[in-house]
């Protein structure tokens, strides 16, 4: 069973890998290996605080486990799952064993194993006995995270079939993503830790997590304290076995019925309010009904605001409240990033749009308006609430400008990305019982957050100029500038998306029908209009996405954010590198970070443009050689 399932998994992966997927996973692998090496290096360092190294390793292992739990929510279900085999007469225990073995054969597992070897490194610094203990500890730790990931995926899957469950899933996911992003504190704030160490309460909590038990055992073995060396290992093994049993129990067909959402009665279905007249009104009403009735959309609605709220609540530990006013803007940005697969989500339903004469524009516009209806009032209310709670009026124009620009930019980019970087997945009626079974939208979400952040730049730039020159009028002018960029984006990008939908509709439908882009356009002279994202080679995609990642990291969290904090005169350093260097160096570091950020973005754009030009030139070359 084990060998069969491993071979089967490899075959599935071999047949479902496309160039773009390769590039993204290549990028992911690079990042993963960097993180693993960092973890290893961490275990080699010397700290003044004796307890600090253990605490740091405990937090790092917990973060790895968190990553394993969050991953499938964005990347979709694993290649092989229990559903595939539920008609075969295989005992669940055997199936679970086979699937576990297949799950272990993966690059992600290898990278994680590399990271967990930090435990062996740590043990080697203690004693030979500790090394002996550390080996089974690493194996158990690896099994723990893999099983945890699978069990959490299954739990989320059965939860996410209802709307209430969607709310729970989204909130938990948002909390985990937010918690993971707090690794900033570790990396940047390490100088603070070096001085004071973790607060004792914090380290007690972290050490109580099962991910730290292996560490406890190794440390005890180093001291020669055998009961404490064996105890945690046995406990860890017990948790692993319990997770395995839970997983094999959950593997079968789902036993709880999916809560069924009912539609409106005959009388209500036929009634049309003034808002819902005309083509756009019809699609708008359909979209609003879908937002209200579809558990997957419920998840989308909750995810952005939940992430933002949790993220601004975390720094309260440091008494930092300057994030409050921006909770609305961050919600809008996240909402755009997580809801960008508009057409991919609806699957092949596109055929109806393609068989009705000339309604592409109405379709795109109505979807934009529905998104704005769902998120506009919500994010603006959050912004106002955040500003009131924070109480400092000087941040209000920043917050308002950010929210308006993110909303307008989001609604425009959403439409554009949904047709230009569509991620195909199973049709909604086929995945109604497994809402986690969707295309891998990780890359699309990153792309969206980068683009929306870019659109927010002009307005925030004006606000910054107003602040720097001490001109309140200019500072407040950022709000109309945000409104203008937002409206422009909404209108222009929406029109471009509608045109793409009209011209490339059949290709998009084919992409969703077959899960692969059409490969037969060569020689027809249509290449010039194909999206560079779909044709770009793996290497170039890696380059573009890496450059973009550097761009985002440099520009926003490490460039503009500390800039804002410095300008607001707040003494908080939080996790921004620039604020931790001595005073005279702070401005240069911010400037360098912004330059790095801009360079990254520019690099990504250059790669994109080269590919676009190459595509334009290709048909000419082809016809030239033919003639």
């Amino acid at each position: 069973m084990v060998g069969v399932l491993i071979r089967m998994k490899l075959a599935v992966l071999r047949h479902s890998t496309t160039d773009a997927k390769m590039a993204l996973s290549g990028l992911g692998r690079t990042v993963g290996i960097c993180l693993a090496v960092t973890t290893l290096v961490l275990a080699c360092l010397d700290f003044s605080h004796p307890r600090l190294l253990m605490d740091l390793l405990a937090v790092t292992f917990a973060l790895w486990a968190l990553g394993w739990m969050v991953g499938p929510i964005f990347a979709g279900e694993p290649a092989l799952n229990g559903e595939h085999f539920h008609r075969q007469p295989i005992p669940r225990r055997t199936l679970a064993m086979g699937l576990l073995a297949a799950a272990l054969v993966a690059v992600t597992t290898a990278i994680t194993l590399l990271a967990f070897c930090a435990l062996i490194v740590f043990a080697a610094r203690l004693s030979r006995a500790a090394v002996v203990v550390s080996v089974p500890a690493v194996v158990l730790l690896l099994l723990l995270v893999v099983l945890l990931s699978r069990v959490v995926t299954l739990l989320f899957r059965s939860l996410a079939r209802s709307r209430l469950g969607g709310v729970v899933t989204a909130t938990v996911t948002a909390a985990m993503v937010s918690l993971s992003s707090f690794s900033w504190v570790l990396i940047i704030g390490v100088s603070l830790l070096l001085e004071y160490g973790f607060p004792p309460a914090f380290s007690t909590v972290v050490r109580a997590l099962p991910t730290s038990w292996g560490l406890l055992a190794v440390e005890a073995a180093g001291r020669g304290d055998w009961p404490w060396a064996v105890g945690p290992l046995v406990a860890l093994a017990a948790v692993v076995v319990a997770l395995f049993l839970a997983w094999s129990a959950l593997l079968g067909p789902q036993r709880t019925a999916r809560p069924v959402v009912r539609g409106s009665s005959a009388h209500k279905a036929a009634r049309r309010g003034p808002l819902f007249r005309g083509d756009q009104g019809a699609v708008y009403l359909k979209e609003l009904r879908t937002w209200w009735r579809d558990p997957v959309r419920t998840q989308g609605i909750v995810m952005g605001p939940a992430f933002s709220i949790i993220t601004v609540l975390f720094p309260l530990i440091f008494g930092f409240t300057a994030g409050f006013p921006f909770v609305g803007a961050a919600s809008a940005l996240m909402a755009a990033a997580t809801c960008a697969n508009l057409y991919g989500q609806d699957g092949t339903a596109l055929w109806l749009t393609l068989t009705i004469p000339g309604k592409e524009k109405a379709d795109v516009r109505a979807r934009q308006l529905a998104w704005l209806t769902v998120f506009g009032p919500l994010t603006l209310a959050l912004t106002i609430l955040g500003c009131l709670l924070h109480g400092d009026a000087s941040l209000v124009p920043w917050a308002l400008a950010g929210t308006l620009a993110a909303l307008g930019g989001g609604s425009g980019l959403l439409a554009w990305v949904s047709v230009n970087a569509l991620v195909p997945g199973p049709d909604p009626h086929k995945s109604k019982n497994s809402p986690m079974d969707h295309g891998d939208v990780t890359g699309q979400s990153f792309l969206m957050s980068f683009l929306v952040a870019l659109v927010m730049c002009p307005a925030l730039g004006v606000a910054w100029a107003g602040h720097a020159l001490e001109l309140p009028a200019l500072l407040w002018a950022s709000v109309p500038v945000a409104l203008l960029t937002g409206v422009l984006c909404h209108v222009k990008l929406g029109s471009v998306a509608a045109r793409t939908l009209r011209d490339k509709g059949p290709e998009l439908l084919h992409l969703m029908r077959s899960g692969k882009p059409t490969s037969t356009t060569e020689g027809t002279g249509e290449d010039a209009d194909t999206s560079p994202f779909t044709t770009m080679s793996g290497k170039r995609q890696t380059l573009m996405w890496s450059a973009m990642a550097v761009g985002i990291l440099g520009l926003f969290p490490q460039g503009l954010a500390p800039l804002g904090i410095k300008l607001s005169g707040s003494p908080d350093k939080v996790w921004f590198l620039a604020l931790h260097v001595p005073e005279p160096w702070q401005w240069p570091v911010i400037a360098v970070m912004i330059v790095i950020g801009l360079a990254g973005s520019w690099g990504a754009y250059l790669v994109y443009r080269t590919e676009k030009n190459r595509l334009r030139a290709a048909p000419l070359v082809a016809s030239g050689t033919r003639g």
Partner: protein
Amino acid sequence: MAPSLEIAGLVKRFGDKTAVDHIDLNVPQGSFYGLVGPNGAGKTTALSMAVGLLRPDGGRALVHGVDVWEEPLRARRLMGVLPDGLAMPERLTGRELLTYLGQLHGLSAEEVDGRADELLAVMELDGSAERTLVVDYSTGMRKKIGLATTLLHAPKVLVLDEPLEAVDPVSAATIKRILKRFVEGGGSVLISSHVMALVEELCDTVGVMARGRVVAQGPLDEVRGGRSLEETFVDLVGVTIGGGEGLSWLAS
């Protein structure tokens, strides 16, 4: 008189495989045309290209003389299309879906309500199924609501891919009667199927596809020439019927 649907030299290649290889088809006005062929013959690909859902690598498709790919807006008004197994706006009820599509087709509110009422009643999708969302429909119900969407705007030509697959006999009888009435009223229907009996029962004209080509077409009696359509089909497609050999381990 221009044929209600004319397919001329349509080609589609997927990689190395030619799924549809220069096919020509003529659906005369007022005819009930059945396109038959084994699985993988290219029926769905051909129909998708004919109705504007899949861009052909070459060739043309004309509906009442209007080119589907040159003048899509005019062509779409004339056609009612039902692809096989595709999604719909899933979170709407049947009535909401018909109302939505009727609005997009530019029908007046009264007209939409009247037609939706009649269509839902005929397809038995009202009453207890009234508030069920399309996502929760059974396969047969999905086919029926799909057919209702194709009829809603009163098209001149219906192009239906496997319209009776997975439909229960009672609903199938309803759908067959509707389609026959549509043809009697002057409309034309093109269906694809691999159920020979169904095609013999309904159609007056047939086309046989195999390996991406049309190997025979014409009036039903001419094509089958005194035999059953199934026998003719097996001859034309040039396959030997499997299942006689091997499998000795089965039920032994």
